[in-house]
């Protein structure tokens, strides 16, 4: 269930990032892998649908985020973990992603992050600000415990002000109970 959520959200971020860069959307998995890049500026293959005698020439050209870039982090590591209703303990299924976040952050020590705690709309504003702060701090403590310097991490709570899923119902609420790791500075240009 959570992998579904992560995959969905990672895919959405991919689409947004790709759209912004005018790239064709290529679906990356959310897995914390670090592609040994074939990043290239080669032009798009012109008319891939036309039958060709030379199949090698129509092989897709892979475009990946530059390692150490913000997009590398959001797409290849994952920038969001999810919480249970009114809870702020890091769920077991969130730890692989947070492990990958801490590995990535240790690999790129210039990067500064802000953990943003979010809550669903089934709570009132002020309580949710406090709850979001607890979630942001839970993520922060996990990263610090796994070797990321505390001075590189700030936290903020958005309460229920920044839902990523604007629908109603349990699925939307599950998406909106999250801790988002936002890169503030120090990432490579993408």
């Amino acid at each position, binding site marked *: 269930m959570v992998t579904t959520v992560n995959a969905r959200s990672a895919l959405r971020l991919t689409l947004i990032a790709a759209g912004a860069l005018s790239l064709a959307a290529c679906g990356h998995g959310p897995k914390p892998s670090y592609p040994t890049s074939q990043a290239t500026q080669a032009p798009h293959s012109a008319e891939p649908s036309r039958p060709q005698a030379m199949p090698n020439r129509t092989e897709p050209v892979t475009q990946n985020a530059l390692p150490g870039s913000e997009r590398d982090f959001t797409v290849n590591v994952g920038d969001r973990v999810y919480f249970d209703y009114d809870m*702020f303990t890091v769920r077991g299924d969130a730890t692989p992603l947070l492990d990958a976040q801490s590995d990535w952050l240790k690999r790129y020590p210039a990067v500064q992050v802000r953990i943003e705690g979010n809550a669903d709309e089934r*709570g009132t*504003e*002020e309580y949710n*600000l*406090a709850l979001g702060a*607890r979630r942001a701090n839970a993520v922060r*403590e996990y990263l610090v415990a796994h070797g990321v310097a505390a001075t590189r991490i700030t*936290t903020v709570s958005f309460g229920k002000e920044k839902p990523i899923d604007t629908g109603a119902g349990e699925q939307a609420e599950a998406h909106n109970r999250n801790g988002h790791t936002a890169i503030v500075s120090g990432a490579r240009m993408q």
Partner: protein
Amino acid sequence: MTQFSKRTLLTAMAALPAAALFVPRAAWADIEVNVNRADVQPLPIAIPAFGGGQVGVDIVGVIASDLQRSGLFRPLDPASFTDRDLNAAVQPNYPAWQKINAQALLYGQASAAGSGLQVDIRICDVFAEKELKGQRFTASPENWRRVAHKIADFVYELLTGEKGYFDTRIAFVAETGARGSKTKRLGIMDQDGANPQYLTDGSATIMTPRFSSTSQQLTYMELRPEGSKIYLLDLDTTRRESLGEFKGMVFSPRFSPDGSKVAFSVERGGNSDIFMMDLRSRATTRLTVDPAIDTSPSFSPNGAQIVFNSDRSGSPQIYIMGADGSSPRRISFAQGRYTAPVWSPTGEFIAFTKQTGGEFHIGVMKPDGSDERILTSSYLDEGPAWAPNGRVLVFTRQGAGGGSKLWSVDVTGRTLQPLPYPGAGSDPAWSPLLN
């Protein structure tokens, strides 16, 4: 014996079984009454257009709207009026007003007084055939709406024995844009929705504006990705100042009753506690020391106690402590999650948001936790705030996946209605009466 009395209206407001005045329904549409717990009819009142031209007509429109929205009065249809020769020089033709079952009659005359506007009014008991009281109001002509609200307050106080709440303003968060990317600006308007103004530019998310109960001053929270700040804003001078820099989030500000202090939440390392700042000395004291969420502080009217929200028992509940943080004790024990408590200005009730059975409710209880009364139910109702007389609450209502709207409900639950503000809004806060 007059057929209406302070006692009748007060009884209506307290939602006690009362000797109902039976009155045939007039052509004017009653306000929507969603919960009719008390078998009490609003008092029929005739308010013929004041003399003095258009301003007299306009003033009466504002008065009638104020009184009607209170749920305690039913302004009668002017088309039914037959006594067309009303003026200050003669007695009203009482039988003509009795015939349409008007119990109260309010008439008046607007005129120019120098460069100002002068309005004289008289209130009569129709069935007792006597004038109850008269009053003269003067103001600058552009403040004609405020004159009308003052007259409505005068009528309300005369006939209910309680202070009115019509010459007031409501601060709120004006919302624009789609959910997930909303712009939330600080807004302010008259309590009847007139003269809306926007006081921030939308670059930061504004939350939880709260009025001082003694002055036209607001405190509110500003949320940005970098963190939050609490501001004080003097509406008369437009001077704005921050409470200062804090390590961690600050939120949930609320003035003390005398306006000299602000209680608020400070978050450190994920834990939220309640602090209080003396606005003169800027000294900050910590009132709660608990690993639970402690937020939404609200003072008792005498300033001696603070009601607040805490999940120290495992779920959010309502607690009361001394204003120095002493002796916290839980007062909410019924099933459900209780948040956003706010003490009424009369001290009589604590209003709250309650979450139970998949719905949100606005409710009130006595400060000892007894006599809980649920006033509203919907997908999402939250954040009650009191009118200065403690008889009406404003709150935020949001539909599933929909926008937020400003609503009000009276303390009996009888009169539930949206505020006359056409846009999306949240976090309403009521000003004290203007001078």
